[in-house]
């Protein structure tokens, strides 16, 4: 049996391609928009997000027979919030400047709908191992959109990637200027819109109105 036909592979890969949390399920956009002005904070954000997502999935899945149905949302929130505190304290201790740059958006991982959505839709009905893979896959599916968007924004908005200058100085001398709009709010909305359009074309989805 090849690895492609195992359930683990499927659970892991589906959220990355077909059911991408950002592009197709419209979840977790807030942070995707806010942190993507530069590539580095986006990568850190993805790591923090993936950590919280996979471990909250595992924890909720382990507790799934114990949690009473009507208070499950509160229980899930407590699990998620504790993990976010861990991630936040870690960032403050070891990467202070990035954590300053991300400011409140690390805390806002708590309210990221992807985490809550996966806990509700997947972890409550599956075993810890599959839940872990599902969390990992969703984190990476979320991550690749974030990184692609931030590459566009940093390249077009400031002419750099990860702080290295990409657009040569001679271009600026010839009159090229950075697109200021890319750093501001409207730039990111339009970038994501165009990206999703491209992905829909590629996957042959007609879009849902």
């Amino acid at each position, binding site marked *: 049996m090849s690895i492609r036909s195992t359930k683990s592979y499927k659970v892991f890969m589906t959220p990355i391609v077909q059911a991408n949390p950002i592009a197709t399920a419209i979840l977790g956009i807030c942070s995707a928009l806010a942190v993507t002005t530069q590539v580095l904070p986006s990568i850190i954000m993805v790591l923090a997000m993936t950590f919280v997502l996979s471990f909250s999935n595992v924890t909720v899945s382990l507790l799934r027979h114990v949690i009473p149905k009507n208070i499950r949302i509160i229980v899930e929130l407590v699990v998620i919030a504790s993990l976010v505190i861990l991630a936040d304290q870690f960032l403050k201790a070891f990467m202070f400047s990035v954590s300053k740059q991300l400011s409140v958006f690390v805390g806002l991982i708590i309210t990221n709908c992807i985490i809550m959505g996966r806990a509700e839709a997947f972890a409550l009905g599956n075993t810890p191992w599959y839940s872990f893979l599902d969390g990992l896959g969703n984190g990476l599916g979320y991550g690749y959109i974030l990184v692609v968007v931030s590459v566009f924004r940093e390249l077009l908005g400031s002419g750099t990637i990860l702080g290295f200058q990409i657009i040569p100085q001679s271009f600026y001398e010839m009159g090229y200027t950075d697109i200021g709009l890319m750093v501001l709010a409207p730039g990111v*909305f339009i970038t994501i819109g165009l990206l999703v359009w491209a992905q829909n074309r590629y996957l042959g989805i007609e879009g849902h109105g």
Partner: protein
Amino acid sequence: MQHLVSLALESIFINNILLALFLGMCSFLGCAKNIKTASGLGLAVIFVLSITAPMNWAVNEYLLKPGALVWLSESFVDVDLSFLVFITFIATIAGMVQLVEMLMEKFSPALYVSLGIFLPLIAVNCAILGTSLFMEQRQYTFAEAAVFGFSSGIGWFLAIVSFSAVLQKLKYADLPKGLNGFAINMITTGLIAMAFMAFAGIKLTEG
């Protein structure tokens, strides 16, 4: 007084919680199809925000800040519970949302049904938690926190209603396949954000 007015105008138009800070996007995109649902949700957000922002201010001021517990006993002067900020804020918010949900089910069942899943989702609406976190980070006073919460809500309401109005017109547009749905919604939001950016040039004189 003038200071509070300018804070209100700034958080409604210039630093709009949705269009400039990107908070509360999920329910923004999910509930905008119908203008009635959109305005109902907008009102719910205004309501929850204007209660939770001052409440979380009090929680932070008297329980969590470094040295905040000094009113209990002098010996607590070194206690710093500010790392608990996330978990207490979200608990306050979840409690409030539960309350609003119960009230709404009793007094306005039609609105309750049409909001559906999105009312519990206000608890995980980043606009609510984000406002509280910004308030804590910028060290607002009580009056400023109250004004900030209320006017952020108004800003969110304005954004979702105008977006919903644009969507009504877009229904009849003949869009390319693939652009339809999420992609065109993002681009529309981008254009609305651009329109709101025009307010950024307005400076209120400080009195």
